[in-house]
C-alpha cells in the first residue's frame, strides 16, 4: 500500500513536471511556439520523463532487492543457533517472523524480537527509498527544466525513449522463454544430482511419496517417468480418439453442408465450448462422466476404476473438439476452389469431392492441427488433476486409473514445498520434459501448417 502511494506521488510529480516543461517551452519561445523545434507538449514530456524515469527505476530496483536484503539482515540478527539451521528451516523461520511482523502472535521471543527488527528495517528502507526517489525525481525535473530551449530537439528525444520502451517490451517474450528454460533447467539439474538422469528417463517405477520420510525403508523413492509418460499418452490418445473424428466431421459439415441456420447455432456453440475453463470440465468429468462410465461398465460386467483414464480422456477430448474443428475448418477452406470445381466438373458427388480431393489436399494442415491438439492434451492439467488418478501404474487399459506428468507436477508442488527434496525438484524435471515435448510438437506442427499455407497462397 505504501509503495502504491509512493508510486502515485512520483506520477503526480511527473505530471507537474510535464506542465512546467510545457510552460517553460512557451516562455523560452517568447510565446511564439513556431520558433520551437518541437511542439511545447514534447518539451513537457521530456521534462516529465527526466522526472519520472530515474525515480521509478530506483523504486523498481528497491522492490526487487528489498525483500532479499531485509531477509539477509534479519537472518544475521537471529541467534547463532538459528543461523546454522538448514536453508529450508530458515525459510520457515522467516515466514514466522513475517507473520509475527504482521501482528500474529508468536511464542518464540527470539522470533518476536526478529519481527520487531524486521518491521524496523522495512520502515527504514522504505523511508530511504522514498527520500531517494523523490530527490531524484526533483533533481531530474530541475535538470531538464533548465535545459528547455527552442533549439532543444525535444520530440526526437521523447520519441527515442518511447522506441526504447517498444523494443524493450518486445524482448519480454524472449525473457519469458529464457526464464522458463533457466528456471526449469536449474531446478531439474539439482534434481538430476540426486536422481540419475537415466533412472528418471527410463525408470518404470514412480513413487515420489516414499522419499519424504527419510527414516523409512525405501526412502530413496522411485522417480522413473515411464509410467507417467504412458499415462499421459494413454489419456491423450483417448482424447484424440474422441476429438479427431468429431472435430473433423464438424468442420466438414459446417464448411461444406450446413445451412446458414445450422451454422448460426453450431459455430457459437463450439466457441462457447472452447471458452469454458478446463476446471469446469474437470468437475464435469468427476461428477457426471466418471460415474456414468462406472455404472455403464458395471452393467456390462466390467470393473471400471472411478478415476479411469477413459473418463478423463473422454472429457479432455470434448475440450479439444473446438480446436480441431477450427483448425480443420481453416485448412479445408484454404483448399483452392478450383480443385473442388475440377472434381465436380467430372461428376463427383459432394462427399466424393471432400473425401478424395479436399481432404487429401488438406491433409498436411490437418496433421499439423492434430499435433497442436496433442500438444495441448499433453499439457492439459486441470481435467487430469481432478479426474485422473494419482498412482502411477504402467498400463494401457483405459478402464484403469493412470496418472500423468501434469498431475504429478501439481501434486508434488501443492502443499508444503521443501526446495531441497527430490520430490519437489522432480516437478521441475517433469516440467522440463513437458516443455521440451510440447515445444517440439508445436515447432513441428507450426512448420507443417506454414508449409501448407505457402503451398496454396
Amino acid at each position, binding site marked *: 500500500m505504501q509503495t502504491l502511494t509512493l508510486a502515485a506521488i512520483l506520477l503526480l510529480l511527473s505530471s507537474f513536471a510535464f506542465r512546467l516543461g510545457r510552460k517553460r517551452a512557451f516562455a523560452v519561445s517568447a510565446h511564439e511556439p513556431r520558433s520551437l523545434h518541437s511542439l511545447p507538449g514534447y518539451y513537457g514530456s521530456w521534462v516529465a520523463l527526466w522526472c519520472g524515469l530515474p525515480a521509478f527505476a530506483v523504486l523498481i530496483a528497491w522492490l526487487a532487492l528489498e525483500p532479499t536484503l531485509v531477509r539477509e539482515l534479519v537472518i544475521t540478527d537471529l541467534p547463532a543457533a538459528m543461523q546454522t539451521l538448514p536453508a529450508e528451516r530458515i525459510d520457515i523461520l522467516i515466514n514466522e517472523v513475517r507473520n509475527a511482523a504482521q501482528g500474529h502472535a508468536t511464542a518464540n521471543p527470539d522470533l518476536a524480537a526478529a519481527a520487531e527488527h524486521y518491521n524496523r528495517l522495512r520502515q527504514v528502507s522504505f523511508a530511504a527509498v522514498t527520500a531517494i526517489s523523490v530527490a531524484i525525481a526533483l533533481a531530474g525535473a530541475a535538470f531538464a527544466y533548465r535545459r528547455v530551449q527552442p533549439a532543444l530537439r525535444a520530440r526526437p528525444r521523447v520519441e527515442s525513449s518511447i522506441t526504447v520502451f517498444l523494443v524493450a517490451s518486445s524482448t*519480454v517474450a524472449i525473457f519469458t522463454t529464457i526464464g522458463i528454460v533457466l528456471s526449469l533447467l536449474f531446478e531439474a539439474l539439482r534434481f538430476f544430482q540426486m536422481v540419475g538422469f537415466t533412472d528418471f528417463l527410463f525408470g518404470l517405477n514412480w513413487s515420489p511419496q516414499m522419499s519424504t520420510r527419510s527414516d523409512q525403508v525405501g526412502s530413496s523413492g522411485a522417480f522413473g517417468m515411464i509410467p507417467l509418460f504412458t499415462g499421459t499418452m494413454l489419456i491423450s490418445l483417448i482424447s484424440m480418439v474422441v476429438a479427431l473424428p468429431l472435430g473433423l466431421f464438424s468442420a466438414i459439415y459446417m464448411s461444406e453442408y450446413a445451412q446458414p441456420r445450422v451454422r448460426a447455432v453450431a459455430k457459437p456453440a463450439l466457441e462457447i465450448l472452447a471458452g469454458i475453463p478446463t476446471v469446469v470440465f474437470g468437475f464435469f468429468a468427476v461428477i457426471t462422466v466418471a460415474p456414468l462410465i462406472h455404472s455403464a461398465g458395471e452393467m456390462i460386467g466390467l470393473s471400471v476404476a472411478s478415476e479411469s483414464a477413459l473418463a478423463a480422456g473422454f472429457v479432455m477430448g470434448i475440450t479439444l473438439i473446438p480446436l480441431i474443428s477450427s483448425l480443420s475448418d481453416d485448412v479445408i477452406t484454404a483448399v483452392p476452389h478450383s480443385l473442388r470445381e475440377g472434381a465436380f466438373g467430372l461428376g463427383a458427388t459432394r462427399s466424393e469431392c471432400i473425401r478424395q480431393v479436399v481432404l487429401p489436399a488438406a491433409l498436411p494442415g490437418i496433421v499439423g492441427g492434430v499435433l497442436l491438439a496433442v500438444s495441448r492434451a499433453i499439457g492439459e492439467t486441470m481435467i487430469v488433476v481432478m479426474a485422473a488418478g494419482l498412482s502411477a501404474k504402467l498400463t494401457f487399459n483405459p478402464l484403469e486409473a493412470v496418472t500423468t506428468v501434469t498431475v504429478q507436477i501439481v501434486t508434488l508442488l501443492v502443499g508444503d514445498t521443501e526446495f531441497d527434496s527430490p520430490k519437489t525438484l522432480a516437478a521441475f524435471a517433469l516440467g522440463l520434459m513437458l516443455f521440451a515435448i510440447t515445444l517440439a510438437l508445436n515447432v513441428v506442427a507450426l512448420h507443417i501448417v506454414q508449409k501448407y499455407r505457402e503451398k496454396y497462397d
Partner: protein
Amino acid sequence: MTEMIQTTATRTAETVAARLNRRYTAERRFRALGLGAILLSVGFLAVLLGSIVDKGWTGFLQTQIAVEIAFDPQVIDPEGTRDPATLDTADYAALVRAGMAARLSPEADRATRRDLSALVSTMAADQLRAMVTADPALIGSRATLWLLASDKLDMVVKGQVPRQVGAAGNALNDRQLGWLADLEQAHQTRKTFNTTFFTAGDSRAPEQAGIWGAVVGSFFSLAITLLVSFPLGVATAVYLEEFAPINRWTNLIEVNINNLAAVPSVVFGLLGLAVFLNVFHMPRSAPLVGGLVLALICLPTIIIAGRAALKAVPPSIRQAAAGLGASPLQIVAHHVLPLAMPGMLTGTILGMARALGETAPLLMIGMVAFIVDIPKSPLDPSAVLPVQIYLWAGSPERAFVEKTSAAIMVLLLFLVSMNMVAIVLRKKFERRW
C-alpha cells in the same frame, strides 16, 4: 462415326446410372456423419451446461428454519453489566440449542443436543450475537427468528440427498428427519435467496461458504494482468508490426511468441514459482503474483491479436500521415493505433477471459490455500474463482457439489459477458474503411 460416338456415350451413361444409387447412399451416410458429429459436440455442451445448472441452481438458495429464541439474560449476561466484551463472548449457541430443544425435543441428553445442533448452522449463533450487540435491549425478550440451517438439513430439504426414514447412510438420522417433517408441517422451514454465497469468503461449512473472496481475488489478479500485459502487448505488437526491421532478431521474437502461446500453462506456473516466489520472494498466494503469471500467459494472445489489428489498418492511412510530415511515432500514435484499438481491445478481452478461467498455474504459486478473509489488496493471500471451484470440487461434503456448480455458473456468466463485450466491440468497429 456418329454411331460410334453415340454408343460410347450410351455406354457411359448407363454405367454411371447403374452406380448412382450406391453413390448417393454413400453421400447421405457421409452427410449424416457430419451432422452427427455436430449434434454430438453441441450435445456435449448442452449436457455439460445442463448438468451444471441442474446441480447448481439450488446453490443460490439457502434453507432457514424458524426457531423461537429466548434471549436469556442468564446465558448472555449473567452479571447484568451489558459490557460489550461480555455480550461479544457469550454462548449464543446455547440459546439456539435451547430454542431448538424447546420446539422439538424436551430430552436433554448429549446425543439429542448434538442431533439438534446439527440441524442449524453455526452461523446462527453469530446472527444472534450481531443482533444483541446492536441492540442489548433484546436481552430478556423472546423472538421467532429465521436461522440458517446446516448444510445437511439444507441438502435434505432441497432433495439433493435421499430422505428415506430408516434407510442407512442418510445425511440426517431418523430422529432428525422426524423433526424436519414436523418443522415442515408447521411451515417453519423456508428457502430464501442465498446472500451468504455472494458476500462471504470461503468456509469449511458449506452453508457459510461464499465466492466473494474469490471474486475479489480474481478481480485483483485480472487488474494486475491487464496493467502488465496490455501495455507490454500493445507495445510489442506496435514494434513488431510498425518499426521492427526484418532480421534474425525479430524473427526470433516472432517464433518465440508463437511458441509461448502454446506452452502449457502449468509450465508458466513453474516459472512463477521459481522466479517470482523463490528468487524475488514475493508473497505466496497473492493476486499480485497470480496476476503477473497470468500476464505472461496471455501476453502472446494480446500480441497476436494486436498485430492482426495493426495489419488491418490500410497502408494508405500511414502514407497520408507521412505525407503531412508526421514522424513514424506520430503516425502510429495519431492514426494507426486509434484505428487498431478496437481490435486490440477485443484480443485483450479474450485474453483476459482466458486468464479468468486459468487454474493450473495458480496452483503452482500457492493460491490453493484455504482463505476465509476477503483480500483487501493484491498482496493479501487470496483465492480466485476457478481455484475456489477446484477446492470445493475436492471437498467431501455433499453440499459443496451445488456450491461448486453455482460458482461455475457465476464464472461462466463472467466469461460470457466478457465475450459478449468482445463480440459487440468487434461488430461495432468492423472495418470502417
